[in-house]
């Protein structure tokens, strides 16, 4: 199978290039395994990866124009030649490895942690199964960055728009019956950019390897803001 990968080493290259490799595809082979075979041919080829089963979120990349995790992307599903590029819109450090610091900054900006003002009980804070169910589809995010780097609003205003991943987290804590910082969280999302630059383009939903729906989460935040305003 013909695989073309994006190459850029800032110590040697002035501009990026695509390099072709031929990999013998085996049944059930994932893209990550093919990239490892490429690395065996050329150890200077760099990409992040670790768990190999779609839970650590290291190997987000752009394959044939779509963001995905290499370790859970079957080679057989891809059209030849397979074009593998770094996640779009982020500065490239080397080959498929991009600088995600701004993405993480946006994540930290939404205070992605439970905030309680009341004293804690001795045992668990009670939460009904229905209240807990509201967190399904929210807490599973693995911070791979596929969604935010597929979002045109994030490309245009990465310093101002929080992006789908961070906003999904914002809603994850707003939706948690144990959290007691609703007003503070909503106030922090006010303004034309942080939340409202989402134009429901839905790229995030399409690419999320965990099947999550940030657009829906963003809609829920907007609803809650309206409720509060009324």
């Amino acid at each position: 199978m013909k695989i073309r990968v994006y190459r850029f080493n800032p110590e040697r290259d002035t501009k990026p290039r695509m390099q072709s490799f031929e990999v013998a595809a085996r049944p059930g082979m994932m893209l990550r395994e093919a990239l490892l075979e490429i690395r065996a041919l050329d150890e200077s080829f760099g990409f992040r990866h670790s768990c190999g089963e779609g839970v650590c979120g290291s190997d987000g990349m752009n394959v044939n124009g779509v963001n995905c995790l290499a370790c859970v992307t079957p080679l057989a599903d891809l059209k030849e030649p397979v074009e593998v590029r770094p996640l779009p819109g982020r500065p490239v450090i080397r080959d498929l490895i991009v600088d995600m610091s701004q993405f993480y900054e946006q994540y930290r900006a939404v205070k992605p942690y439970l905030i309680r003002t009341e004293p804690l009980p001795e045992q668990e804070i009670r939460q009904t199964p229905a209240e807990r169910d509201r967190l399904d589809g929210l807490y599973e995010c693995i911070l791979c960055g596929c969604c935010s780097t597929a979002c045109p609003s994030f490309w245009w205003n990465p310093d101002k728009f929080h992006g789908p991943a961070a906003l999904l987290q914002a809603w994850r804590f707003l939706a948690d019956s144990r959290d007691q910082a609703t007003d503070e969280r909503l106030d922090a999302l006010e303004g034309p950019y942080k939340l409202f630059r989402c134009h429901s383009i839905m790229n995030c939903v399409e690419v999320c390897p965990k099947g999550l729906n940030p657009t829906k989460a963003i809609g829920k935040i907007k609803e809650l803001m309206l409720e509060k305003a009324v």
Partner: protein
Amino acid sequence: MDLQHRHFDALIIGAGGAGLNAALRLASADYRVAVVSKVFPTRSHTVAAQGGVNAALANVLPDNWHWHMFDTVKGSDYLGDQDAIETMCREAIPTVYELEHAGVPFSRLENGKIYQRAFGGMSQNFGGEQAARTCAAADRTGHAILHTLYQQNIRARTHFFDEVFAVDLLRDEDGVALGALVLDIATGEPLVIEAKTTLIATGGYGQVFRTCTNAFINTGDGMAMALRAGLPLQDMEFYQFHPTGVAGKGMLITEGARGEGGYLINATGERFMERYAPKALDLASRDVVARAIVTEIRAGRGCGPQRDHVLLKLDHLGADVVHQRLPGIVDICRVFQGIDPAEKPIPVFPTAHYAMGGIPTDRAARVVAPARHGPEEYVPGLYAAGECACVSVHGANRLGGNSLLDILVFGRAAGQDIERYLSENPNHRPLTANHLEPALARLARWERQGDGEPVHVVKADLRKLMEDHCGVFRDHDTMTQGIEKLRALRARVESARLQDHSRTFNTARIEALELDNLVDVGMATLATALAREESRGAHSRVDFPERDDVHWMKHSLFWREGDRVEAKPVRTKPLTVDSFPPKARVY
């Protein structure tokens, strides 16, 4: 070379559950904490833990920590240190409540309390009926805990060094830990982190085996650093093979699948665990189930055209239970097998999973090693917690749901004791060029130019070697050959070469440094496995099928120098309750 130095109260190497729980405690107490992690923290392998964390909350069935302690001592095949096990089982309860308060989205019962499921080796009333002791967030418990701990560390303003690789520990002439030499992966620049205390929390080394449930990053870095610093590793012969890895691939199918009512069948459709564990059946201890599967296959009762696996049946549980309680397993089966486990059974085979052994510590997570006065003298300022450590709560075999517990309890214990140490030792100790020399030499070694074998070839051979010579069943001849081959392979590492010497995010250089680590922990595993002439827990010798409490009721210690193996006593005395004396282990 112009080496930059940074100064911290505590250096934590590794950002999994143990490292982050220690960091959280220290950062919340306003200490200057540096967490060095070779990957972004939420990529740590804790994220992959599926099934849950044990605590005798008694939310579903009656329970208490003393029963949990009994199960853990028995599960350890009586090799676990009973003082540490008591600590872990008592602390489990406040630890889980603390996690819940921090935001972990545990699955819930109708009354709003944390849901608890059945897991292997867990009983009520000292070996009675099956207990429901394992707290879970669906089958994504590790993910839920790791992300929550990272989030709380953001709140506490812990200082993270993301994608920074720890090269070696730094110690002075008196053996006091001074920090570590690390390498910024993005820039390729080395950096000295001077710290008054150092916690090694680097996780396991499953990558030493060809088929394993472990992530690519699990290369035993911290264990090998300890070895190179002249410290021993303890009980390395005990390596757990998880009974249910996806056949031929290795991804884990959580024991929670059996906890929810799943069971194993062989080619004749027989529920074969009835013959091996008539009472506990599929929820017998992992070593028992893993051996049963391999035995079935060796007897020709394996499934598939190659007769090389058995089947895990979940389809009788109903789509609701499977999809709600085991959504991650559904994903794994869909992606890697193309099946829905609610409809078709999953092909499984035992897979290298978890290191019971590691850097010896006491129950405050202080690293201990034999010195002038006894077998357990503190190494000042040095701590270890999590899978890389051996506080010996798992002994010869770990029970499911006890590994998340181990990292959390002893991560926090490390944080606590570091606070005490810092109050008694408020100053940095001097670090000189001499202290740095060995670590810099290790970095420089991979700068050699010229022809030589590539790293990935040597690594692939190592993993095959370990699988062939140190697997589920072991014997003297196979392991003796294995050690010979490993010595030859160690020589090949010396002559291997990197072709790419660039600095910016050079993954090849990191993998070369990891290979050094894998070879050292591989030798520790093989050497101690050959030395222990008995079968106990996960260590199963064909040539010594019985447990031998007279000669082998003791821990092994391995030193890198001369590949030396020694022994030290098991701590059979708990803190406040009576000892559990060794008994035959039946399930």
